[in-house]
């Protein structure tokens, strides 16, 4: 129990520290460092407390349910391997915190740095001790995201931004692959629990999806561990502050990939595929990294490529996967972390104290910073694999595996040679690092005067170098047990104890080491000068800059190609969009009906009526005419549209829908007025559009004509086959039977509208209201095109003056029609429930009455006499309709339950008094309001324009009066 809590503390501490530091003020540098350092120390203490249990080979587990329904739980699992790794991470974290507190400038937002750093540590620890492979991915991705923030800490620089982005993209892409792999793995194993996955190696390797899993898994691991060809992000990430590099890019994040390789070796490893892929990649990376490192002039660049190379070495070991290899891999993970962290820190000190990291400018620094220099020399020696240092030991073990382990493949045969060659380069670049920076003449023209850093900045380096020495000399006493523990945790408890000695006799690995040392020295001595003068990178190879390639690829993949593709697969123009809709509708409907649709053998049909057919001759001619004229003769098209509408109304009447005929007619009238009001603002098309006669335009028209014809045919066909089908039993019958008894009205259509399906009407009036408001709102900010701003041509002509009284006589009749229309409106309203009519018809009628007054007079004349507050009407109408509906609540009925009754009124007799009528009142008020609002809002534009013209004219006149001289000058 206590262990489980301890594990939770272990993982929780860094995150808590992150939260605390994040909430510190910008300049509380020291506090942030202390919080971070103490929390790391605390975590390390916790880890140590757990050592006793770990050492017995026990695996500690704790699970907090998070999303158990998809098997994603916060399961933590601490064994020897992860224990060792966590210890490494925490220890280096402490050192980095110390180092950073001296390294970072006062002007930096330091608490944020620590916050990120702590969060990163937490994520890293989480990844290492995750007992659930999905959670492993979660933490894995978290490390990518946070490392992005850390690399971009100095985001003012372009290099930092680019480096951060590239690192994120590469590692996150790998993470996505890893997620895919884990999902499939979980699918195969039937659980995301790491224990069960680790135990299911045979099942996984035998599964047909194994290659897929392996491929995706390796993509994840290789990207994170900067393996060839995904190595290029790491040098770019060197734009990060040095503490970040020391931590992430030597000890922790980049090791996540190799950690994963080792961890999952029991599941995925041991196959030929694994060997080729992993060892092959590892060897290539090892060699390439070492070669490139030699040619880098940037200190951190050299270290970065060196890191890549060492990661390749570890990867190669994981690929071999023998007991010794795994042990060596773990050992080298540790060793590399130690010497590389110290080297990064040293490089940081040099950068910090001299102002440059360019080895061509640095020289003879041993005189100015002897301590740092010594430390760096020791650490470099470890990196080069000089005996008595830790790097030597693990490299020897690698050589031993390369030589001793066989599986009979060509890669296996080549390994010793490749290992030696890469070692030669490693020696050479280590030598270069030391020689150029610390020896030679005193540097000239450095940005800063070099000197030793503050002692505390050096302490972490000192400690690390000490570790190099101690482990290098006394491996069995120091790291030996822990390593064995870790290897056993990976490969199983039956693993025999491996003794790590510094002397194995004068064997092949030893010869290889000596060869490398000698070869490297020679190589450096011969080529030192040329390297210094050469470009950043090995000859020939430097032209292939992976980073550049990647950047170009990224640019192409994430910008150029998508843009081109997006243009190709999308459009911003309306016509293609509408064409696609129509064509898709046609194609899909046709596909559905093709060869399946049946035309009924006993079609329903009504007798042919010549008059009706003739009316449709008119209707069709009008429709086609409207289509024909709409471009150049809008006015004509409008009238033809009216003609087609009229015949439509007649059709409704003829086919027993008097309500529809009435409503459609009323709407026709208002629509005509609306369109005309709008037409005022579409200036007449004076000339034909230039392109119209050209071939492409003609082709387009032909194509559209074809589409239109097919659409028409299709609709006609659909309508015909359904119309002629026998009538199936439908819910319509019920309405006929119940309209009178249950709905209290004889006009079934109206009863449906205000009672059976009143909810539709309720929504419909809301639509009308919204549209009214939208029209109003839009027109408030309306600006006419410049050519429509002046008064229409008809009013400009000299004859126009004679038109003064043209309305005097007509307006009399129009005025007198006003009360008549009110009565007609009332008539429509009253009879709606029993006969054609209803609130909508009444409302539109009244709106037409208003419209007529506006047309017969001027806006100002009407509005001086009639106060129409359309929006008020709309609000009241909606509220009446809604309140009627809610009224039913009082009687225990649902919304819009109507209450119909015929009430006997003295003298008058029975009158229908349905609540539906009240509802209809609401509809009426709303329709009046909305229709009038729309009409008047457009009409007001003319008034506005006229006022504006007057205003401009008076301004111009005033100007003319005040400044005649200016005018003359013009």
């Amino acid at each position, binding site marked *: 129990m206590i262990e489980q809590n301890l594990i939770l503390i272990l993982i929780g501490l860094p995150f808590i520290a992150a939260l605390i530091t994040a909430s510190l003020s910008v300049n509380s540098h020291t506090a942030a460092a202390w919080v971070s350092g103490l929390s790391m120390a605390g975590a390390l203490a916790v880890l140590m407390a757990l050592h006793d249990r770990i050492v017995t080979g026990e695996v500690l587990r704790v699970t907090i349910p998070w999303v158990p329904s998809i098997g994603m739980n916060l399961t933590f699992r601490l064994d020897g391997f992860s224990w060792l790794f966590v210890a490494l991470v925490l220890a280096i974290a402490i050192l980095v915190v110390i180092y950073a507190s001296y390294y970072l400038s006062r002007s930096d937002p330091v608490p944020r740095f620590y916050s990120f750093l702590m969060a990163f540590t937490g994520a890293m620890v989480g990844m290492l001790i995750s007992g659930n492979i999905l959670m492993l991915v979660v933490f894995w991705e978290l490390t990518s995201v946070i490392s992005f923030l850390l690399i971009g800490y100095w985001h003012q620089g372009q290099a930092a931004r680019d480096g951060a982005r590239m690192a994120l993209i590469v590692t996150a892409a790998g993470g996505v692959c890893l997620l895919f792999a884990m999902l499939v793995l979980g699918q195969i194993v039937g659980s995301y629990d790491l224990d069960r996955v680790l135990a299911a190696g045979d099942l996984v390797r035998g599964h047909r999806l194994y290659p897929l899993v392996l491929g995706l898994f390796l993509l994840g691991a290789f990207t994170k561990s900067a393996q060839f060809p995904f190595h290029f992000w790491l040098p770019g990430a060197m734009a990060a502050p040095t503490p970040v590099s020391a931590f992430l890019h030597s000890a922790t994040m980049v090791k996540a990939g190799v950690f994963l390789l080792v961890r999952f070796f029991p599941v995925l490893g041991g196959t030929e595929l694994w060997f080729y892929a992993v060892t092959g990649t590892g060897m290539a990376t090892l060699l390439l990294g070492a070669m490139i490192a030699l040619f880098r002039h940037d200190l951190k660049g050299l270290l970065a490529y060196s890191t890549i190379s060492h990661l390749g070495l570890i990867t190669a070991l994981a690929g071999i996967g023998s007991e010794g290899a795994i042990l060596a891999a773990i050992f080298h993970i540790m060793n590399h972390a130690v010497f590389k962290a110290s080297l990064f820190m040293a490089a940081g000190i040099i950068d910090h104290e001299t102002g440059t990291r360019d080895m061509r400018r640095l020289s003879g620094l041993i005189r100015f910073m002897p301590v740092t220099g010594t430390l760096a020399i020791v650490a470099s020696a470890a990196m080069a694999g000089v005996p008595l240092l830790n790097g030597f030991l693990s490299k020897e073990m690698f050589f031993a595996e390369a030589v001793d382990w066989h599986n009979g493949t060509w890669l296996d045969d080549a390994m010793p040679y490749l290992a030696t060659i890469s070692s030669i380069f490693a020696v050479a670049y280590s030598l270069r690092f030391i020689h150029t920076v610390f020896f030679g003449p005193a540097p000239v023209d450095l940005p800063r005067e070099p000197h030793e850093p503050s002692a505390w900045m050096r302490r972490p380096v000192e400690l690390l170098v000490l570790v190099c020495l101690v482990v290098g000399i006394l491996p069995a006493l120091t790291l030996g047990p822990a390593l064995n523990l870790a290897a056993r945790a990976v490969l199983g408890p039956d693993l025999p104890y491996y003794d790590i000695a510094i002397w194995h006799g004068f064997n092949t690995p030893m010869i290889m080491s000596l060869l490398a040392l000698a070869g490297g020295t020679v190589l450096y001595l011969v080529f030192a000068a040329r390297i210094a003068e050469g470009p950043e990178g090995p000859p020939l190879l430097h032209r292939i800059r992976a980073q550049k390639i990647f950047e170009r690829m990224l640019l192409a993949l994430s910008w150029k190609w*998508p843009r081109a593709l997006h243009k190709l*697969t999308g459009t911003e123009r309306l016509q293609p969009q509408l064409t696609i809709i129509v064509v*898709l509708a046609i194609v899909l409907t046709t596909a559905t009906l093709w060869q399946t649709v049946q035309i009924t053998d006993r079609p329903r049909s009504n007798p042919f009526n010549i008059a009706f057919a003739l009316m449709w001759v008119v209707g069709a001619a009008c429709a086609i005419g409207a289509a024909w004229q709409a471009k150049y003769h809008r006015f004509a098209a409008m009238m033809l549209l009216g003609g087609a509408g009229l015949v439509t109304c007649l059709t409704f009447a003829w086919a027993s829908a008097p309500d529809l005929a009435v409503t459609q007619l009323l709407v026709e009238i208002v629509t005509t007025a609306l369109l005309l009001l709008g037409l005022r603002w579409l200036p007449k098309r004076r000339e034909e559009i230039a392109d119209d006669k050209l071939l492409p335009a003609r082709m387009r028209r032909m194509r559209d004509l074809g589409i239109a014809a097919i659409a028409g045919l299709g609709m006609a066909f659909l309508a015909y086959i359904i119309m002629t089908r026998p009538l199936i039993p439908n*819910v319509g019958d019920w309405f006929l*039977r119940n309209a009178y008894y249950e709905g209290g009205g004889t006009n079934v259509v109206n009863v449906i509208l205000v009672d059976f399906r009143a909810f539709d009407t309720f929504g*419909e009036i809301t639509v009308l209201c919204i549209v009214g408001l939208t029209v109003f709102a839009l027109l408030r*900010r309306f600006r006419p095109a410049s050519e429509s701003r002046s008064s229409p041509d008809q009013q400009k002509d000299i004859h126009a003056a004679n038109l003064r009284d043209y309305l005097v006589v007509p307006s009399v009749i129009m005025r007198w029609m006003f009360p008549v229309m009110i009565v007609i409106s009332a008539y429509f309203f009253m009879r709606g429930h029993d006969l054609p009519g209803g609130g909508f018809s009444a409302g539109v009628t009244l709106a037409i009455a208003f419209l007529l007054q506006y047309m017969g007079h001027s806006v100002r004349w009407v509005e001086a006499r009639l106060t129409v507050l359309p929006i008020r009407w709309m609000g009241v109408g909606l509220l009446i309709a809604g309140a009627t509906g809610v009224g039913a609540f009082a009687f*225990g*009925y649902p*919304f819009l339950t109507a209450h119909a009754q015929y009430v006997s009124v003295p003298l008058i007799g029975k009158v229908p008094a349905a609540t539906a009528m009240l509802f209809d009142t609401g509809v009426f008020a709303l329709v009046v309001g909305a229709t009038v609002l729309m009409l008047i809002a457009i009409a007001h534009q003319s008034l506005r324009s006229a006022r504006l013209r007057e205003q401009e004219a008076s301004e111009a006149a005033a100007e003319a009066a005040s400044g005649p001289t200016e005018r003359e000058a013009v």
Partner: protein
Amino acid sequence: MTAGLNHLIIAPILIPFFAGALMLLYDDRQRRTKLLISLGSALALLLTAIELLNRAKGSALSGGNDIGFYLLGDWAMPFGIVLVIDRLSAMMLVLTALLALPALVYAAAGWNRQGQHFHSMFQFLLMGLNGAFLTGDLFNLFVFFEVLLAASYGMLLHGSGQLRIRAGLHYIAVNLAASLLFLIGVSMIYGVTGTLNMAHLSNLVPLLPESERPLLHAAAVLMGLAFLIKAGIWPLSFWLSTAYMAAAAPVAAIFAIMTKVGVYVVLRLSMLMFGASAGASAGFGAYLLLGGGMATVIFGFIGVLASQGLGRMAAHLVLVSSGTLLSVTGFALMGGGSAMLGGALFYMLASTLATSALFLLIEPMSREEGGIAALLALTADAYGLDEKEEDSQPETGLAIPGTLTVLGLSFGICLLVLAGLPPLPGFIGKVAILRGVMASEALPAGLGWAFVALMLVSGLATLIGLVRIGIQTFWASDGVVPRVLALEIAPVLVLCAMIVLLSVRADDALRYMRATAEALYRPTIYAEGVLRAPRVVSSPTPAPAPSPPAKPAAQAPSSAAAPAPAPATPAPSAPNGEVQP
């Protein structure tokens, strides 16, 4: 929530309706009152929706009448219109309310002054959305679609300006075409099956004679096109990015739910009509949805990569999300299982919240000197001769400290969700979907793998695109920190908090979604529940019980016209048997 009358079900429609109507009586200058009404309504909606969700949760799979229904006008099924509340619709209601409240608060920072009657229109939009989620009647669905569309036209055009008008024109034209298709489809369904009730339809589909089936499918295709246009499926989605980009920030934030309405309807109707129990029609359209959905995801992430501005990018993210959901719907029709579908619903919740937050972030993130004041000045009405525009004063609100940090944090949260990165719910949702897809035996393996790969790639593309924009905005911009009001950032933070909450309580949410998905796989629960919905008045003859005024409509005419109405009104007592072919 068993049978009976429950006005709470209609509250999500009535609350915004009355709020919107009431505000029409106020002058547009009484902003404070309007804002209060509006916020009050949104809050009430949220509470109602949560209560409905709680009730829906209680009884989703108990069998039989376990959904809530509301017979409008107390008319018997399947003749009248019914509102149906089940887990899915309750969830959509909650989501709508969750988006509405922050958007409204945000709008209070000055956006509501850019045009007329913003709040009424906003409320009507909510009414339309809620109506579309609740209704159980196809034509009523059309009506509510029109309500929400009309309101969305108004909202999109809110503030006017060239970009909005151009986008609005396209948006309206495309949606009008879609509405026409919808009408054709609905009427064909009526012509072929004789009903408009979704539950009734679900029961009729398996019984349909083979001669009528192709016509039913054709109708479904036409209607489906209309919904898919709203859902933004490729290649019917080109209107979307410009429209969303052009809309004012709070408008775009609520628009985040608009594509989901299309998805919701597609999901609802296809599961009801073409689910496993649909006989010869089972699985109709599955491949179309899957193909279209995947194409949409591809187009969406290509668009994300190709976008220069955050607005357009966010709009394409909407497409990615909606394409994912459509593909999953396709899988669901193939029998993909509730694990996958439940994951998709969870993903929908997360991605909608995140896109909404992102839309709210866009403007403050890209705001230069002056902020809203400048914006208002741009749109200020040159023709406002009639009334003085006191609108142009910028809101003097509380500017928040640490602006960039807060903005960056919020942006980061949105990014993680949309790119599907852990530990936020985007990741959880994706994992749930992918797990479900991989585990499902019913799905063609190749398609499943293609989909999984597509999901992962689209997440990566999203990451790349958003990181690019984020770096540009937060890292590469040197200069003035924008002045952002607390009123603008608080809603974003609320949305982010909800996202975080969703990831903390992911298991509860996922369980809910999975149960929802299971219910969707059993359309008979829905259909039987609705069709057995009892009226308050059990029969047209007066009830002997001393109940409140029993439906007088039934008595009055019969007392007026002496003979008993018995032969004329047999229907209401037999809602089910009578109208089946």
